[in-house]
């Protein structure tokens, strides 16, 4: 033991993730789901646990859970049952939580994630995914020596996702959770907002000598409210285990509460009572049957996952990884890019414009991309005009912005606002000004510094406020500068 404690160790992490499903109403009653409502205003006989009230399943909650299960490559059990988990807590109105136990909705899934180090891909197996109701909230600091209970959250639909202990570092735990969050957001299964509690994570941690297949005593860590806190808490706990093992101590099997302010995990008090949840099948709910047609429908409309999209953008459009990742980060952005790329001359140009001008416009107008009125074909037209040299990049930007603002076509805007490239006498005047105003540079150019041509083109473009046709300007400048 002492020997192995001195040798290199690895950290073994498994996660238990609770995700609030994005429904309008609670899982077993018609009460509205709303974060931050005045306390106890979204309550009814069912979620208050009044005597005689009974649960009725919300179809949408089940469908979202099925969607999550399919996305996590789980084996979906078309027949599953609800079970009661019995324990007393002030925010648990019935004295039991309706959950699932020995026959959950889904088991045996997996999710790949980009490993934090080395750029490889890791795989975390999903042990189970089940549906359950959330508890209310107990506030212990609202009134002195009192617990205040708000039951608005009681009955909000959740899925609990339990992973196998396949994660080997706190950084990977973070990376995995990030990938999971991205998937669930993308599927519109959940908001996954850790601050509002719609994504909550508990972790099981243990350490063992590298090469060992034995599992050591683990501890459960709770209360990690952000991705960085998750990583910190796990690192803290793994170090604590390691130090204990190296000093010949023993890890106690216990639940640790992470204190983000002090940056330490403390054992939870008041755990002297061993939990005995006395699970049994919920007699108020028949077997949960998922019709095959539902599975087909939900499986069929399962969108491409963001990382799949990212890979496809690299493969099919030849985009750099950076572009692909950014564009696939939201469905709206990705869809817009693809629509633009369909008609634009070059995918990379489409990507540049979407990442640059579209996001800038969204930012300036304070709107999310999906609410920005972008006509993809119009944008592709603008890109084409610039690529063909019929507009300068600057004019193209102006044109695109005006199109968003007015909703008018490229042609209309160009006509009405006289956005076109200028040549002829107009151009000649700007070229002359550029040459006459910079005699020193003219001298140097003629002395052989031909790269100063770009400087003169820049001068012309500036003087013309972007209207000068760059190709014509180049031609004219070379002519003028060529004369001695």
């Amino acid at each position: 033991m002492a020997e192995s404690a001195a040798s290199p160790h690895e950290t073994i992490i498994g996660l238990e993730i609770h995700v609030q499903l994005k429904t309008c109403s609670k899982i077993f009653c018609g009460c509205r789901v709303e974060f931050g409502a005045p306390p106890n205003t979204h309550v009814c006989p069912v979620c208050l646990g009044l005597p005689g009230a009974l649960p009725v399943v919300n179809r949408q909650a089940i469908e979202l859970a099925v969607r999550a299960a399919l996305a996590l490559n789980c084996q979906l059990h078309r027949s599953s049952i609800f079970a009661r988990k019995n324990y007393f807590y002030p925010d648990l109105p019935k004295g039991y939580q309706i959950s699932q136990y020995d026959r959950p909705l889904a088991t045996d899934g997996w999710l790949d994630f980009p490993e934090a180090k080395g750029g490889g891909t890791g795989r975390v197996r999903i042990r189970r995914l089940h549906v359950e109701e959330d508890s209310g909230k107990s506030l212990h600091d609202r009134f002195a020596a009192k617990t205040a209970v708000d039951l608005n959250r009681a009955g909000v639909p959740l899925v609990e996702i339990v992973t196998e202990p396949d994660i080997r570092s706190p950084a990977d735990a973070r990376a995995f959770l990030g990938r999971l969050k991205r998937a669930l957001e993308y599927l519109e299964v959940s908001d996954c907002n850790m601050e509002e509690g719609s994504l909550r994570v508990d972790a099981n941690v243990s350490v063992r000598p590298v090469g060992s297949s034995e599992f050591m005593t683990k501890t459960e860590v709770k209360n990690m409210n952000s991705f960085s806190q998750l990583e910190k808490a796990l690192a803290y706990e793994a170090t604590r285990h390691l130090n204990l093992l190296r000093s010949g101590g023993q890890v106690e099997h216990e639940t640790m509460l992470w204190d983000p302010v002090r940056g330490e995990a403390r054992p939870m008090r008041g755990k002297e009572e061993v939990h005995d949840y006395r699970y049994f099948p919920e007699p108020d709910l028949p077997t949960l049957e998922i019709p095959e047609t539902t599975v087909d429908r939900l499986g069929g409309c399962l969108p491409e996952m963001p990382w799949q999209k990212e890979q496809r953008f690299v493969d099919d459009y030849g985009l750099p990884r950076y572009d692909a990742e950014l564009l696939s980060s939201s469905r709206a952005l990705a869809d817009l890019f693809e629509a633009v790329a369909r008609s634009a001359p070059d995918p990379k140009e489409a990507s540049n414009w979407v990442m640059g001008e579209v996001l800038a416009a969204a930012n300036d107008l304070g709107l999310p991309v999906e609410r920005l009125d972008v006509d993809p074909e119009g944008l592709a037209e603008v890109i084409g005009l610039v690529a063909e040299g019929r507009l300068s990049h600057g004019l193209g930007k102006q044109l695109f912005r005006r199109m968003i603002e007015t909703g008018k076509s490229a042609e209309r805007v160009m006509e009405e606002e006289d956005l076109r490239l200028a040549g002829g006498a107009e151009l000649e005047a700007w070229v002359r000004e550029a040459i006459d105003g910079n005699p020193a540079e003219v001298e140097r150019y003629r002395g052989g510094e031909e790269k100063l041509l770009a400087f003169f083109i820049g001068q012309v473009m500036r003087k013309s406020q972007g209207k000068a046709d760059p190709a014509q300007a180049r031609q004219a400048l070379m002519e003028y500068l060529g004369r001695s």
Partner: protein
Amino acid sequence: MTIKRTDVEKVAALARLELDQAELDALTDDCGSILEFFEAIRDVDVEGATPAGALEHPAPARDDQAEHDRLERPPAEMAPEWREGYFVLPRLPALDAESVDDDSEA
């Protein structure tokens, strides 16, 4: 199988039942004789019998609509203690288990 006094005590704690000594004695006796009576069931050959469980007819489902609450009177009227919109109960940190703010028990 029989039930001991300590079993009754343990179960009563799990079920949050305050019992005085006399009650504990009486309950141990009662439950002992009842469980003894139940033992007859061990004669049944349950090999291969599936436990009767949830109803087999599919659970009806409701549409995801926020309907109006059906409370004819507000919760404040039935709560033993109510303050500023909350159900309230006393708490002694020394006795009552510490918990995460957003109880993650669920």
